[in-house]
């Protein structure tokens, strides 16, 4: 933690890098992105309907977002309440998205 090392004097011994977790997260992100490309390009819509693909894309995107926020932005290792402060307001966004997509569909039907 920053508290332990942060205030020590600068001249001292520099610790060895500890980056295994960072690279693991990188490989996870790369694998998910590669999977998205395979779904987009290798699987024709006649086998898997477009709507199913969209659902899979959204799940994979949220998975990627989780890894970036939790590991790279370190939110998983902060106080839990801080995480809740950031994540819970996203409920409004989910609601807004669903409402507006339905609204868009209704506009299309009316035209």
């Amino acid at each position, binding site marked *: 933690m*920053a*508290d332990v*090392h*942060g*205030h*020590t004097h*600068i001249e001292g011994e*520099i*610790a060895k*890098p*500890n*980056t295994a977790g*960072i*690279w693991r*997260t*990188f490989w996870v*992100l*790369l694998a998910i*992105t590669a999977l*998205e*490309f395979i779904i*987009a*390009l290798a699987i*024709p*819509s*006649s086998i898997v309907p477009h709507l199913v*693909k*969209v659902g899979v*894309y*959204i799940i994979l*995107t949220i998975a*990627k*977002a989780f890894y*970036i*926020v939790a*590991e*790279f*932005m*370190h939110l998983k290792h*902060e*106080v839990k*309440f*801080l995480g809740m*402060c*950031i994540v819970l*307001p*996203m409920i409004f*966004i989910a609601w*807004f*998205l669903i409402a*507006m*997509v339905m*609204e*868009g*569909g209704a*506009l*299309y039907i009316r*035209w």
Partner: protein
Amino acid sequence: MAHLAKTNEHEGSLDWNGGNIPLKASWGKLMMWFFLLSDAFSFSALLITYAMIRYSHAAYQGTAENFKFSLDYWPVPEKVFEAMPFLHGISLPLVFVGIMTFILIMSSVTMVLAVEAGHRNDRKDVEKWMLWTILGGFTFLGCQAWEWTHFIHGTDKGGAVDVYGQVIYGANLIQNQYGPVPFANLFFFITGFHGFHVFSGVMLNVLVFYNTAFGVYENPNRVIDEGAGRYEMIEKVGLYWHFVDLVWVFVFTAFYLI
């Protein structure tokens, strides 16, 4: 006066003068998180606008092979974004945007490595990884400039036919060879707003690299937030940089996959 005495024990505590640290995060980091939350709302509003306008237009019904650009329906992304620098005329759907995504993820990794080096007060490593991050940011911006240029100029044979029977070449805010005009407008607005965030992020990265290289963070007289390390500024700028990467993940899904 008890709390005053308590804060005086922690040298350099400027901002949390109440004597405790809310959420065990320093003042600057907490404010960065709340700024990012508000920025997430801005980007969500833009992407939700995209979703709404898209679903108020007809979707393309036929097979991908027979797809033709038309003003009557929303285009299929893998048919719009299939160009690649130096490989003119070859159809490589989503390859270039895949490379851009990889560059941005990679620069996010080098940023988190810089933050890790900062925790160890390893100035050399911070400098090295910040330089890689800056390079990644500029490369991404260059790719985006190329992609915009191609999008604006359009393909050799043009695309959709307008109401007068004329073939449209390229895209701008009033006509669009790839499909309905709002598609181009949203593309320019959303990727432009994201690109501007990337540009600001690169500027911040250059700033903290400069400070690191000139030893600003190692100055023993520099006042740092309570509970923070010397190199916490790297962490705060890093949060912003990761957020830019995070937004790209969503822009990528909305524009290039769905």
